[in-house]
């Protein structure tokens, strides 16, 4: 559904050109879930923005179901780091924002939103502002806003990084459930190995900046019952960890460098 062909991205910082991503080749298959993992500053977020059509590559091409994403796509939704909610809008207004930009308002918007609010257990806090919500609730509002657009491709940028362990696990379950139910193609950027293994059928491992694809690891156990407590899960985590640590470039060292 989404193909990245020799995609590179260079940021201009004054006179300096900073390469962020180099020679990325990826073929995203419809309905699958992908986790993108790599050290801090390796261009994970840039990769997501490229796939969302928010920025354009400096070289190579990105094709969404045959077309190049010139601008944010109708069938793509992205959930940004820190949820991307607007502090001056209520839960309802935030969730309805994407629909409003597509001229879906009033009853039509309600028809789409209410089932989603119910599914995400948000009906109690529709009139609240983001500052009145917990981290988990904010994340669910961001999910509601994305789901309202009925996306085929859902991109998530470190969606659960700011949450406590229990809330994070609950939301991982929720994301899994939504992915199955709505048959969305999911691409999730994370810095947590466990999260990548729990949520990604394919785990894309990036190298430190400029980010290149170091490996794409298939994770056949993903989504199976009790996977988190399964021996296979821990084995997969170790496998990812050892790839990340190859050549002595662990998350830690790259964090110190960047």
């Amino acid at each position, binding site marked *: 559904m989404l193909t990245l062909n020799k995609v590179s991205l260079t940021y201009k910082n004054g006179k300096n050109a900073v390469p962020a991503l180099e020679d990325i080749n990826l073929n995203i298959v419809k309905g699958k879930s992908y986790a993108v993992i790599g050290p801090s500053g390796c261009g994970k977020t840039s990769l997501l923005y490229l796939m*969302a059509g*928010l920025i354009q590559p400096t070289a190579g091409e990105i094709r969404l179901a045959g077309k190049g994403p010139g601008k*944010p796509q109708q069938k793509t939704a992205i959930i940004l780091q*820190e949820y991307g909610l*607007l502090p*001056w809008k209520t839960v309802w207004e935030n969730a309805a924002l*994407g629909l409003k*930009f597509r001229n879906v308002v009033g009853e039509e918007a309600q028809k789409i939103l209410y089932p989603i609010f119910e599914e995400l257990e948000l009906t109690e806090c529709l009139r609240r*502002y983001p*500052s009145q919500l917990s981290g988990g609730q904010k994340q669910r509002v961001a999910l509601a806003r994305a789901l309202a657009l009925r996306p085929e491709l859902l991109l998530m940028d470190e969606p659960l990084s700011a949450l406590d362990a229990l809330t994070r696990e609950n939301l991982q379950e929720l994301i899994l459930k939504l992915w199955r139910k709505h048959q969305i193609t999911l691409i999730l950027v994370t810095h947590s190995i466990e999260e990548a293994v729990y949520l990604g059928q394919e785990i894309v491992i990036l190298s430190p900046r400029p980010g290149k694809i170091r490996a794409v690891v298939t994770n056949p156990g993903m989504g199976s019952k009790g996977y988190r407590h399964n021996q296979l899960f821990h084995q997969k985590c170790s496998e990812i960890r050892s790839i990340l640590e190859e050549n002595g470039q662990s998350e830690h060292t790259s964090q110190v460098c960047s």
Partner: protein
Amino acid sequence: MSTQARSVHKNSVTSYIFAVFFLLLGWEILARILNSPALPEPLPALIQFIRIFPQGLWEHFLVSTYRVVLSLFLGIAFAVPLGLYIGREEKVDRFLAPHVYLLYPIPKIALLPVIFIIFKIGDTSKIFLITLIIFFQILVTTRDAAKKVPPASIISVLSLGASRWEIYRNVIIPACLPEIFTAVRISLGTAISVLFFAESFATIKGLGYFIFETWSRISYTEMFAGILALSLLGFFLFLLIDFLQRLLCPWLYV
């Protein structure tokens, strides 16, 4: 939440009563220490205010209110859209910023004679002068607020497919509103000071005129009634701005 809001409201009413009491007390003490006819005690001034307000002071009050409110409105109407625009357009800002910085520090109040000659001595010249002065205060604050709108908020609505106008409408304007309100509050103080000066000659209406006129008649209690009226005008407009902020920025009060 509503009980909380009510108790906050109650608190602010109580603290206003206290503030008024302490200010009057300070005034009383100062008047007794100075013992000058130029600073009457609060009670005679208040009695005078209550006596002459219905007799004609109200007319000066209304004229001054009209001049300040219209000037504030015009200042906001010109400065806010321009500030929002140049705050988001780097090229335009680079071109306009030197102009603004050269014009901003000019004591525009000194242009009063020029303005009187061009706009004659009616309301227009006074309103123009006040508008001109507060325009720059609101412009600079609004521009700086627009510059620091978090990029994440803009990317967030862009990813939802927002158009340029929708970005202004849903992100830039609400993000800047609290600072615009602060600028308007500060401008209100400036506007009243400039009003007082602009009304001090070439007019027979307005609280500035009233204060100067009673001063020339050495009627100090009447003069203080005028000063009270001017203070009340500022206070009521301050409350109005607060009320409008509550109405337009409800997320700040949750």
